[in-house]
Structure formats: structure tokens, C-alpha cells
């Protein structure tokens, strides 16, 4: 009797502690999510009477070339950004994980850009990318590369944004460094005694043991890069000729320029479903590929 009373008290107190989160979840996430789903079946500009149109928005979406372009741009960006971020971040973390003098300084320098983000960074890079007077073309001139149009060129605009984002690879480096430092050195010593060479140690110790970290970086990076907005909004406004027309730029325009709230809700819903499915796929793969033991 006494025991169950105590348990009940503990449960009530526990609920009270998580209450702020739960209220926020209902009011700011679950509620709006449900409402958005409802809106996606309507035609509405936020002021006039709301008109129920069933699946009309979704049908229209499937024939909307702007929508497909925005999806393509976002997926291409996400794919290349994630792969490059992972490879560069991992390689630099391996290099920095060595006990050479001065590593603290290097960590600081490489991490610094990662704390800078948003509008000011986008402004800085738009000038860096300037075709005639930008510092990037100037630097590339020394190795004989002719001037590139960067953000004003249809073929270079998206790679430009990827490059700018890779400047902020520092957070990935730091996450990997934290992971690498958690690998027990005995494992490497044992492998060395067994005569394992470097490449073997990398593939059979480091990478398997780092797989939870790798998947963590992948998932967080994926969810964020599917929603990229600020960079494109400031630097290119989706151009030139829709080359950087990210999903979120399309959403912003549909919502706040065209005031087609129902149609925008359908778009947003599709984005959620895409993020949800791909994240679950990554999680599913990670269950079979990740080595959680020893870590």
C-alpha cells in the first residue's frame, strides 16, 4: 500500500516536471501539425472563407514543375553536402586526433566558422563569390583557374552554397573528435601487436566503432539540410533560373508572397513525410550497420 502510494506520487511529480514540454508539444507542434494537415485539403488565403477542395492541392503539386525543381535542388544539395561533410569532417578529425603540438589551436580555427551562421555569413560569402572582385576567384587565379561565376552562374550556384556550408564543417569535426577520443587505445595497441596496418585499423576498428557517431551526424545533417533557407534567401533568392530554388524558398513564396496557405500546407506536409521516411530509413540501416558494443 505504502509502496504504490509512493510510486503514484513519484509518477505525478514526474508528469509535473515534463508538463512544460508536453504543453509546448501540444500547442506548438502537435496542434499546428494537425491544423496544417487540415489546411492542406483547402484553398485559403488566410482571410477569405476557407474552401474545402479535397486532394486537389496534392494533385496540383504532382504537376507543378516549380515544386519538382525545388525538391530536386534540395535533394541534390542534401546528398552532396552530407557526403562531403562526412568525408571532410571525418578525415580532418582523424588528422586532428593525433597528439601533435598545436592541435588545440587548429581545433579552434577549424571550429570557429561553425559558430557563425545566418545572414552575416551569407552576406560575407556573396562578396567572396563575386565574379570580378571576389577573393575566391583571385585565389583560384594562382592555380590557373579562370574566373567562375559562382552564385550568378546557373551551374555553379548550388555548388557555391555547398562550399559555403562546408566551411562550417567544424561542428562535424568536433563531434567526430569526441567520438574518436572515446575509442579505447588498447584496441589499437592490440591491433598493432597483431601487425595490422593503418588501413586495416581504420576499416576494422575506427570506422565500425564510429558508426553511431556517423549516423548521428547523418541524421541531424539530413534534417537540417532539407530545410535550408537563409543562405539561398540572402544570396540568390532561388536563382539564377531556379538553380538554387530550395524547397523552403518555394514554401516561403507560396506562403508569404502568393498567400496560398492551403497549397503551402500540402507542400510542407510532403516535406515532413519525406524527412520522416528517409530518417527512418537511415535509422533502420543504422540498426544493422552500427556496432554499439564496446563503445
Amino acid at each position, binding site marked *: 500500500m505504502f509502496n504504490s502510494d509512493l510510486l503514484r506520487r513519484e*509518477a505525478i511529480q514526474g508528469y509535473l516536471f515534463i508538463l512544460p514540454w508536453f504543453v*509546448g*508539444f501540444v500547442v506548438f507542434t502537435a496542434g499546428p501539425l494537425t491544423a496544417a494537415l487540415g489546411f492542406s485539403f483547402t484553398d485559403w488565403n488566410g482571410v477569405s472563407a476557407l474552401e474545402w477542395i479535397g486532394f486537389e492541392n496534392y494533385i496540383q503539386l504532382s504537376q507543378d514543375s516549380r515544386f519538382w525543381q525545388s525538391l530536386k535542388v534540395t535533394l541534390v544539395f542534401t546528398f552532396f553536402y552530407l557526403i562531403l561533410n562526412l568525408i571532410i569532417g571525418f578525415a580532418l578529425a582523424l588528422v586532428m586526433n593525433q597528439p601533435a603540438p598545436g592541435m588545440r589551436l587548429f581545433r579552434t580555427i*577549424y571550429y*570557429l566558422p561553425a559558430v557563425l551562421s545566418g*545572414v*552575416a555569413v551569407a552576406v560575407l560569402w556573396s562578396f567572396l563569390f563575386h565574379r570580378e572582385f571576389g577573393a575566391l576567384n*583571385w585565389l583560384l587565379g594562382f592555380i590557373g583557374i579562370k574566373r567562375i561565376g559562382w552564385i550568378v552562374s546557373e551551374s555553379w550556384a548550388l555548388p557555391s552554397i555547398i562550399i559555403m556550408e562546408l566551411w562550417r564543417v567544424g561542428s562535424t569535426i568536433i563531434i567526430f573528435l*569526441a567520438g574518436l577520443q572515446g575509442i579505447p587505445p588498447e584496441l589499437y595497441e592490440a591491433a598493432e601487436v597483431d601487425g595490422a596496418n593503418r588501413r586495416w585499423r581504420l576499416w576494422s576498428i575506427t570506422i565500425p566503432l564510429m558508426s553511431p557517431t556517423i549516423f548521428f551526424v547523418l541524421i541531424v545533417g539530413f534534417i537540417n539540410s532539407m530545410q535550408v533557407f537563409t543562405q539561398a534567401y540572402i544570396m540568390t533568392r532561388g536563382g539564377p533560373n531556379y538553380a538554387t530554388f530550395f524547397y523552403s524558398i518555394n514554401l516561403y513564396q507560396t506562403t508569404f508572397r502568393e498567400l496560398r496557405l492551403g497549397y503551402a500546407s500540402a507542400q510542407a506536409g510532403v516535406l515532413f513525410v519525406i524527412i520522416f521516411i528517409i530518417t527512418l530509413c537511415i535509422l533502420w540501416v543504422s540498426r544493422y550497420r552500427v556496432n554499439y558494443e564496446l563503445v
Partner: protein
Amino acid sequence: MATATASATSAGQGGFWSRRRKLRLQNHLLTYLVLIPGALLFLYPLLWMLSTSVKPKDQIFTYPIEWIPHTWMWSNYGEVFNQVPFWTYTVNTAIITVIGVVGTLFGSSLAAYGFARFRFPGKDALFVLMLSTMMVPIWVTLIPSFLMFRWFGWLNSYLPILVPAFFAQPFYTFLLRQFFMTVPIDLEDAARIDGANRLQIFLNIMLPLSRPALATVAIFAFFFYWNEFLLPLIYIQDQTKFPISVGISAFVSEYRSDFALMMAASAMALAPPMIVFFLAQRYFIQGFVLSGVKG
């Protein structure tokens, strides 16, 4: 790509030792060969920003680039204040950031304590539910939230940005819970025997013991709110209420070609995050270790 080759330094014999040492020197040399040019590349955009920000107008559009200004135009910085109410922007950003950080710490630490230290039915399911809300893109909840805040009469105020901060952010809650679970429970038990209630224990024992973790969350939240762009872009109409991000964005569309002023404004926007970064560096690595990337 040498991993921890040099982890065992306690080797005994002379010949073996000197061979190791040679190998290690070679390794270091290679490491620096990668890291030093890389570090310069990472600093390059920032140096470019600083250099441009103090150049006179006629020197900005010169090619090849002249990195050292012939006259140091520190007045460019003052000019930014003449063109836009930059000081007001800064104060606004500071208000948003401070309240945002306080709110984040409040809600997230409460929920984290609830999840870390109490047993109650449905705890695991609720925790998974909380984590899965990280997959919900901001775009999905944006339109209903906007309409809700409009109905509250909160448009053109910071409330839509700041009120949700107090209701626990999933990622930070997760981070803090991970930390709380590493704190030995004995101290809390002792306090309970002395008759303290759970809220008192949370405030007087758990929070003081968790200062490093709270600092980590505070810093992450600082960067988040300092750089926040989309929400103020949507919710704030008055120029006098703009944070720096929206202010610069408006500034850029007006003075597209005045690169010196834009770089000066960017430099001033980026200075506070950089200062916080240098002061609080050690908490970053800690944060990533905490985030449980080790499985």
C-alpha cells in the same frame, strides 16, 4: 590519415624508441602539411571580411586584390550606424538572445529532470515522442502557428519567437537528461531523507551540479537565437524591432554594391558569437560528448 600510432610512448629499448620517434616526426610533418594550409583556408573568408571592411571605396573594386588598405577607413563602421539603426538592432538581438537562452534553460532542464529521475507510466514512449518531434520541419507548423499568434495579437512582437522557448527544446532536453543521468543519485537521496521535496532537490542540488551541461546548452542556445532569421523575418514588421539578422538582410537589398559597409556590418554581427566562442570553447567539446554520440 594516421590514427593513434603514437599512443604507446612508454617503449623501452633505444633502437626501437628512436625508430618510433622518427616515424612520429614524419607523422607530425604530414599532419601540419594538411592542417596549416587548411587553417589558412578556413580563416581566409574572415580575413577578407576584415580587410574589406576597412577599405576606402575606390580600393574595393581593384583587381588584383589589394589586401592592405591605403587609408584605413575605420569610419566605415561608423557609417553603418548612420545608414541603419544598427545599435537598435543589436539591443533587440540581445533581448531576444537573453530571454531565449533563459527560456531554453528553464523548460529543457525541467523536462530533462523529469525524464532522468522519475518513474512514470509511458515515460519511454513520451521520450521517443519528444525526440521524434526533431524530425518535424519548422515549415510544417509555421502557417498554423502564424495564424495562432495572429489570433493572440502577437504579430510584430518577440512573443512568437520567445514564448515557445520556455516549453523545452527536444535536443537540449535530451542533452541535459544524458548529463543528469550521470550525476550520482546519493546526494539527492540524502536530501530527500532530510525532507527536501523534488523541486528543491532539482533547484538546490541538481542544477548546481550540472553547471557545465547547462553552460553548454546556454551557449548553443545563444548561437541559435543570435542568428535566428526566419522567425523574425516573418513576425516582425517594424524596423525598430528588427534583430541584426533581419536588419542586415534589409540593408543588403538596399546597399547591394556597398561592400565595405556590408562587410563592416557583417563583422559587427559576427563579433559577439566569436567572442562567446573564444570564452566558452571548452564547453563545446563537452556538449558533443554529452549528446551521447557514443551510443
